[in-house]
């Protein structure tokens, strides 16, 4: 089981240039809006044509521009879950699920029946898509795709059109489905939570180029490049210089910090996740204190977002974004801390990926 993809396509303002392989499970593709990730998925499905490329699914060549092979989407056997699910509004649930089956009416019936009960759509067979909830629509779309037995499942931002409550519920459902499905899948999203929950492997894309590829948890734990750190949700990045084997100068914040790992030779940035800080008092003696100016504070339902400006007399006056739970912040409501500290092991050591546009 494998999918090999190599693509080149000129897009507005940049060009898509990617090569990767998937051998098992679900690959997440994470990138900002308009980075070319949807285009990648559409190229695999044959909905758009890349300028150059080669796509091999199992042993079938779907596309090879050098050999002038370009299978139409009808022959590629890919299942594509569209952002809006693309259910046919003129067809009932039953008809939608059965549409891809090349079978006689009698042969179709039991297959459709089985998919409908598998996706818990019993009783909704005669409904039209607009009569269904968002979750039901997604299940119909998945039932329609899986009834067709595709060789790869392509999921294009499947949760972007849903409200928060439904989103989490459907993420759980899709996670279960992907475990049972046991085939290849690619999930494209700009949401780091989704890839973390659903995908074993993760590729990050910035402006049409791959910047990382690897195990999802490992990528979050050690993003290596500042672009990847940002995509995986790291709010605090500072340009940095090594000053010792385990010491780094954060230029934007004007402080020197201890690191747990030795500094890599090409270090350009450090990153600190917004929830990895802890407050320290004026006189307390701790490792890695960062002096700060009065913060701007905004309240979220279950946490506080506190944005400090680093002291501009020390560095370039960058920002520090601190997220903390409500109970901790309540102690600081009147007098916000003037210093935050970070443990050496929580400092992400990053080096700009060369040959890429800056973050």
């Amino acid at each position, binding site marked *: 089981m494998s999918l090999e993809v190599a693509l080149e396509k000129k897009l507005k303002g940049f060009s898509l240039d990617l090569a990767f392989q998937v051998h098992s499970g679900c690959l997440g593709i994470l990138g900002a809006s308009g980075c070319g990730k949807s285009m990648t998925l559409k190229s695999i499905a044959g909905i758009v044509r890349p300028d150059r490329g080669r796509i091999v699914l199992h042993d079938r060549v779907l596309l090879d521009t050098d050999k002038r092979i370009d299978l139409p989407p009808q022959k590629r056997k890919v299942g594509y879950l569209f952002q809006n699910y693309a*259910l046919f509004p003129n067809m009932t649930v039953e008809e939608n699920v059965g549409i891809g089956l090349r079978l006689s009416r009698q042969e179709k019936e039991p297959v459709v029946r089985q998919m409908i009960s598998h996706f818990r759509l019993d009783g909704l067979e005669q409904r039209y898509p607009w009569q269904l909830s968002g979750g039901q629509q997604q299940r119909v779309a998945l039932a329609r795709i899986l009834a067709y037995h595709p060789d790869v499942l392509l999921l294009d931002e499947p949760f972007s059109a849903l409200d928060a409550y439904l989103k989490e519920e459907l993420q759980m459902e899709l996670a279960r489905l992907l475990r049972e499905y046991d085939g290849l899948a690619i999930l494209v999203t700009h949401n780091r939570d989704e890839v973390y929950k659903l995908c074993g492997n993760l590729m990050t894309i910035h402006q049409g180029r791959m910047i990382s590829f690897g195990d999802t948890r490992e990528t979050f734990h050690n993003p290596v490049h500042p672009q990847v750190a940002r995509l995986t949700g790291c709010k605090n990045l500072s340009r940095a210089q090594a000053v010792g084997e385990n010491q780094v100068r954060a230029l934007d914040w004007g402080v020197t910090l201890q690191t747990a790992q030795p500094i890599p030779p090409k270090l350009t940035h450090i990153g600190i996740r917004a929830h990895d800080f802890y407050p320290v008092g004026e006189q307390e003696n701790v490792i890695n204190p960062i002096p700060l100016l009065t913060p701007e504070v905004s309240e979220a339902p279950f946490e506080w977002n506190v944005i400090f400006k680093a002291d501009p007399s020390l560095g370039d006056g960058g920002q520090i974004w601190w997220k903390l739970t409500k109970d901790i912040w309540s102690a600081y409501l009147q007098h916000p801390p003037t210093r935050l500290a970070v443990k050496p092991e929580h400092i992400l050591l990053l080096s700009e990926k060369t040959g890429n546009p800056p973050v």
Partner: protein
Amino acid sequence: MDVSPILISMKTASVTIVITFFLGVAAARWVVGLRSKHLRTIMDGLLTLPLVLPPTVAGFFLLYIFGVKRPVGEFFLNYFGYKIAFSWSATVLAATVVAFPLMYRSARGAFEQVDENLIFAGRTLGLSEREIFWKIMMPNAVPGVLSGGVLAFARGLGEFGATAMIAGNIAGKTRTLPLAIYSAVSAGDMDKAWDYVAIIVVISFLTVVGMNYFSGKEKKQAKRGQRHVS
């Protein structure tokens, strides 16, 4: 009252709408499917031209093509013994040419309104282009296509300029309602003109009501289409 103009008009408009409907839908499907943007723009311009040309100019071209001494007209006369110009079929010809762009444009608009993801989904599910057209495009474009049909019917019914040029104004043969009104007024018979005017107004009003009915359905369908996103 001479009812022949009413009968001729209804007969002409009915035959016209059948021809226009199929031609318009086929042309719309073809143009929407064109890959080259330039070709699409050029074809769209050509197919829409009769809408913006004065009908007399359209009639002039028709006369130039189908006139008895012209290649196509001569061909029909020699091989089928059929004279197109100044026959009843010329009223259909004139009305078809003038009504066609309305049908074509409405159908094209309706096809373009269909969410392209539906078409992509059809393709990835293995449906042929023909199946996609009949099972997905057409059913989801029905209200727009029908309202285009109604509009084209009304336009065919009211056709005057091109008809006068190629079909003439022969009482009982090519004199449609608009031409009959013109003739009645020329002859100073205002009562007669009023009768015909009243009939045309009633039919046109019913047409507008019919069109609103279909476009109301279209809006409703569009809403439903959107709802399945949320």
